[in-house]
């Protein structure tokens, strides 16, 4: 849906595609079988694991088949704060990313049309963060905002914050990192939508509605909806599952743990697979519901 | 499979070809024979099945039933790359990732012909584009691309060259010029050309034989003059030029002619120009064969006279003036008058009579839509 910016812009679909079931099968089957084995089977296996009960022999990390739906109750009640926090972070960061990206995408996609070279350059800069380690970028912010860094020293000396207070480890720091890391995922789909946007509509709009604010609300915004929806999905979903930014060695603290943090520790340290799995299944369920809403409103052809 | 290349082209035969697409039939029981070396045009409106016919001959589409024979050989089950046929596509379909020269040499290379580049260069020179050999297709104008597409097809000396509206994307002036060039090239190389077009002027100008297609079948086929002078169906009479058509039951019949009565006027057609000689028939005449008169001309039985009627529209088109005359109980009649300065100056609303020679009437085998037999 969103990454057309990497290739050329799609043209109209060609009519009269030949239909030869053998060729279709040969083209689609390998990829689909692969996804079946290594994407859908693991999801199914998560559901099975999420219902398992501790093995009778009682070793750590040993479970057997069961139908312990109460795992979900346990996971939900125990980790409600992390669940709520994950979705709160994701919501706030998505909104901020949208607010930051929209004018930027509009500038690149509409205003820079007359200067293709500059447009291409700006687009490269938008995706530039993809080419440098996501972890190192986050660590860079951590060091920039460290208590001894120039920014915090200035804030302390201006008396905006008390020396006993820190920026790192707060909700704000985590949301800042999440927003930063996912802005390109919002800008790109917005750009692809706005790039194809017919500016004559704006002229027609200002002809009919006169005020620029009204034109924006009645013409520009509705027409950029596909990009907004794509971008929102592409940003919200990975943020809800992320836990690196919130990690104690990155921008977070023990007070900023998210669903991912718990899945990681339950799975890799505590080896409580059923709880880790039921958390994952709950997260996935929310995401499938969001995607389902999108498909119902826009169909599946524009998904990819 | 070895491809049989005839130096002078081969004849093409379609036997009972039918093509069904999901939901509609594109071609029905199509029979067609094109002699070797002929310039043959398939003419018809969009959706009439002409492009489907071409694609079936090229092998890009498989017929639902029937046979395709090239040079007497059944190629119905032969794949496109094994047929001695080349196509000039409507959109030219030049390969954007190759130079012009490589485009032209493509077919030769595929068939492992010796010296492909030299032969390709010769073909480019034939279309006067030798100087552009190293350019890319995107760097050429539409007309130049069209000539490259032609060279790319011709260089293979196919038994049959298929042209799918090859001039459709060119502007009028370039189009007329290319028509002349195309015809000259066909005469020079002597190949069989099958040309698909919806432009009647183009078809009549270039082709030895024109087949007019409508709704998946051939309505009428023949030399351009014959088709124009004696259209046999209402569709052909209207698609190829313009016609005034009159429908009525046969009122009078002599040894050599038939007459119908329309709105009190007797409209006559020679028997040897009438396809249908009983019941309700349709008689037509071309607008340029008619003249109008300010008074009733009182001509003999070798003329048809209708009128009086009122001039309701006059159009100046340059070489001729077109008058639309509404005759009570007959309908509207169109008259073309050459713009040579000797026609009477006439105004809207004037009363006139229209006449033509009986020998210019033609009788159709069917009736125009809306006039079917009760």
């Amino acid at each position: 849906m969103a990454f057309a910016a990497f290739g050329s812009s799609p043209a109209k679909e060609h009519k009269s595609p030949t239909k030869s079931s053998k060729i279709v099968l040969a083209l689609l089957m390998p990829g689909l079988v692969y996804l079946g084995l290594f994407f859908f089977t693991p999801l199914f296996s998560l559901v099975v694991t999420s219902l398992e009960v501790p093995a009778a022999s009682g070793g750590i990390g040993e479970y057997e088949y069961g139908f312990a739906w109460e795992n979900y109750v346990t996971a939900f009640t125990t980790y409600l704060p992390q669940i709520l926090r994950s979705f709160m972070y994701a919501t706030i960061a998505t909104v901020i990313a949208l607010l930051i990206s929209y004018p930027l995408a509009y500038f690149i996609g509409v205003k820079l049309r007359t200067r293709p070279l500059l447009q291409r350059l700006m687009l490269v800069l938008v995706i530039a963060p993809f080419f440098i380690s996501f972890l190192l970028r986050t660590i860079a912010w951590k060091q920039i905002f460290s208590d001894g860094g120039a920014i915090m020293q200035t804030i302390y000396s201006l008396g905006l914050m008390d020396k006993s207070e820190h920026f790192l480890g707060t909700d704000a720091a985590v949301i800042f990192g999440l927003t930063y890391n996912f802005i390109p995922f919002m800008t790109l789909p917005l750009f692809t939508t706005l790039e194809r946007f017919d500016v004559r509509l704006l002229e027609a709009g200002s002809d009919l509605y006169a005020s620029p604010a009204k034109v924006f609300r009645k013409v520009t915004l509705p027409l950029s909806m596909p990009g907004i929806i794509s971008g929102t999905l592409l940003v919200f979903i990975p943020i809800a599952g992320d836990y690196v930014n919130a990690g104690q060695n990155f921008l977070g603290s023990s007070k900023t743990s998210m669903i991912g943090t718990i899945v990681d520790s339950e799975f890799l340290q505590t080896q409580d697979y059923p709880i880790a799995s039921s958390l994952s299944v709950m997260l996935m369920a929310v995401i499938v519901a969001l995607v389902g809403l999108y498909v119902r409103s826009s169909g599946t052809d524009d998904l990819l | 499979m070895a491809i049989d290349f005839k130096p002078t082209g081969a004849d093409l035969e379609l036997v009972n070809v039918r093509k069904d697409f999901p939901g509609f039939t594109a071609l029905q029981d199509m029979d067609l024979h094109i002699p070797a070396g002929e310039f043959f045009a398939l003419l018809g409106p969009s959706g009439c099945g002409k492009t489907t016919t071409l694609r079936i001959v090229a092998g890009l589409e498989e017929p639902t039933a029937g046979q395709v024979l090239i040079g007497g050989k059944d190629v119905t089950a032969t794949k496109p790359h094994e047929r001695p046929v080349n196509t000039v596509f409507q959109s030219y379909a030049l390969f954007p990732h190759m130079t012009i020269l490589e485009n032209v040499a493509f077919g030769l290379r595929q068939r492992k012909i010796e010296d492909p580049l030299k032969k390709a260069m010769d073909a480019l020179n034939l279309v006067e584009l030798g100087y552009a050999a190293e350019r890319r297709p995107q760097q050429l104008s539409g007309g130049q691309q069209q000539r490259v597409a032609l060279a790319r097809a011709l260089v293979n000396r196919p038994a049959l060259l298929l042209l799918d509206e090859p001039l459709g994307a060119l502007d009028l002036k370039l189009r007329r010029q290319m028509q002349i060039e195309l015809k000259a090239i066909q005469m020079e190389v002597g190949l069989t050309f099958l040309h698909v077009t919806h432009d009647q002027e183009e078809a009549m100008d270039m082709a030895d034989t024109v087949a007019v297609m409508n709704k998946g079948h051939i309505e009428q086929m023949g030399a351009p003059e014959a088709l124009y002078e004696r259209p046999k169906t209402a569709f052909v009479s209207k698609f190829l030029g313009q016609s005034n058509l009159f429908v009525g039951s046969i009122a009078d019949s002599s040894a050599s002619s038939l007459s119908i009565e329309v709105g009190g006027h007797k409209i006559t057609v020679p028997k040897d120009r009438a396809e249908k000689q009983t019941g309700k028939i349709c008689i037509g005449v071309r607008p340029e064969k008619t003249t109008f008169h300010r008074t009733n001309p009182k001509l003999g039985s070798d003329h048809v006279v209708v009128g009086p009627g009122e001039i309701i529209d006059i159009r100046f088109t340059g070489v001729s003036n077109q008058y639309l005359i509404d005759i009570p109980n007959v309908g509207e009649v169109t008259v073309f008058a050459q713009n040579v300065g000797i026609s009477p100056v006439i105004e809207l609303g004037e009363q006139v009579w229209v006449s033509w020679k009986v020998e210019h009437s033609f009788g159709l085998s069917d009736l125009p839509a809306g006039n079917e037999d009760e």
Partner: protein
Amino acid sequence: MKRFSPGKLTLPTYSFLAMAFMLIPIVYTIVFSFNDSSQRTNTEWQGFTLDKWFGVCAKPDVCQALGNSIFIGVVSTLIATVLGTALAIGLVRYRFRARSLVNLALFLPMATPEVVLGAGLAGLFFNAGVGAGMTTVIIAHVVFCLSFVVVTVKARVQTLDPVLEEAGRDLYANPTQVFWKITFPLLLPGIISAALLSFSLSFDDFIITYFNSGSVETFPKYVYVAAARGVPAEANVIASAVFLAAILIVLGTQINGAIKRKRLARK
């Protein structure tokens, strides 16, 4: 000429500031690859040196991790590109009833949080008794690269006029020759950008790798673990080098494309 007005400058100014903001950590990372941080952790500026660039492998585990990441990236990109290109061609060129289902099946991996996919695959491998290692990482990376390849190549297939392939068939090329001489070269730019995207996704992946790599060290894993005690400047050197290489490739193709378009537009 346009009239000068401060309102007209708001959007460009904002955009350039936003871009600058996006680039801050990149510049920071590159600058600190030149930090002379031999004695202490690489958190404070201590002087310029090129030592880290010329002696990256002084810390052998960084280079080992980098080698693994490159290997994993290349192999999973190869597999994902082949599978994804076939899927993209199939999806654009053929109409079939399960189309929307296939679209959905390809979209879901993109929409699945990494932690869910990581945990799911780890659970699957664990239950199947497959030990985590190089193979499991590659299998996992192909899953999330595949959809991105499909999206990128699909856009290119949509711009490819099927009549070009018909012209090839008409000019005596059999279906295999048509694919290699016409379809493939015309799709190549799309396939290359898909492969680059796939490689960078694989190279930068941490969460899914963390769940499925066992004892295999990758570059992001190295950085993640090192984050606890301070990341050495060698890691900055590697990230900077990869960044500069990638940005040069992308800039090169984009500028080239823009110049070509300009030249054609002038014709």
